[in-house]
């Protein structure tokens, strides 16, 4: 040995430092949040009956507009937290807000909007969750921002918070509306 510090013996330390760096970065991510592969892809088309109405709803009805698709259900606990924010959003902005009542009995869904108020422009009923699968829904509530060309631009996983609305959704909607 010429020197007291030999490169080979430093390797374990270097490997470990790399490991710690990654773990430090990893701490800032939530492993439960799975990004959607549908971002920047066309929103899957569907035609579903509307809640309590005889008409149907289809995403292509809204081509040319920026709109939100909010997946909710009467059995969903955190939808209750989100609801007042949606009501406020509907009152303050004229952006179409489409509800997707996901795997819910229609009468329960109707009960929900009568009791808590209806923020939605229209509500589509996804009885068997098929449309949900096409949108990659895995936890309710989820909200998709869809642009004028019918492309999904953003997905909010979990309830929309005041913060997410103000700092993420509204600026994005404004930008897309230009």
């Amino acid at each position: 040995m010429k020197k007291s510090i030999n490169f080979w013996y430093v390797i374990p330390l270097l490997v470990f430092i790399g490991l710690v760096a990654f773990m430090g970065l990893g701490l800032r991510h939530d492993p439960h949040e799975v990004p959607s592969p549908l971002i920047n892809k066309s929103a899957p088309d569907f035609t579903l009956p509307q809640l309590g109405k005889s008409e149907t709803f289809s995403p292509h009805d809204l081509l040319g507009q920026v709109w939100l698709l909010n997946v909710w259900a009467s059995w969903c606990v955190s939808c209750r937290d989100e609801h007042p924010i949606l009501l406020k959003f509907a009152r303050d902005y004229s952006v179409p807000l489409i509800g997707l009542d996901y795997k819910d009995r229609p009468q329960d869904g109707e009960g929900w909007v009568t009791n808590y108020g209806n923020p939605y422009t229209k509500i589509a009923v996804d009885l068997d969750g098929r449309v949900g699968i096409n949108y990659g829904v895995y936890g309710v509530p989820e909200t998709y921002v869809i642009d004028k060309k019918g492309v999904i631009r953003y997905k909010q996983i979990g309830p929309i918070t005041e913060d997410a609305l103000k700092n993420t959704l509204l600026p994005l909607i404004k930008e897309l509306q230009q």
Partner: protein
Amino acid sequence: MKTLGTLLIALFMSVSVLAKEATPVARDPVTEARLIDLSKDMRCLVCQNESLAASDADLAKDLRDQIRQLINQGKTDKEITDYMVQRYGNFIRYKPPVDATTYALWFGPFLLLLVGIGVLISVVRKRNSQSEEAPLSAQQQQHATELLRE
């Protein structure tokens, strides 16, 4: 007591010969076998690290139904996996695809093994070429005899 119990059960069994052989839950065992094969390599998204095959979650049941339908539509395994990946991303695959993000994952163990073999060869060669150890010193000799005596 035990014999009595056995007798009773035997009696019961002979009475209920009418009972039928159990039927598989699945209508089509071939489809079901493929479903299990496919879904055990897929991850249930809402669970804490469980496969679609094992999970009791609602979404897992829905997705299994969906896979069953796709099988019945004659889709290949690859088409079905692609279908799921299109909707939920690579997160759903327990066996990630080999691509730019996973080269280190798939080739890493192989590389590590090569490095290990390299180290092994160099160590053995070094030790192999070193001269034999010096003969035992008197003290070591004594130590050795003591050991042998034990």
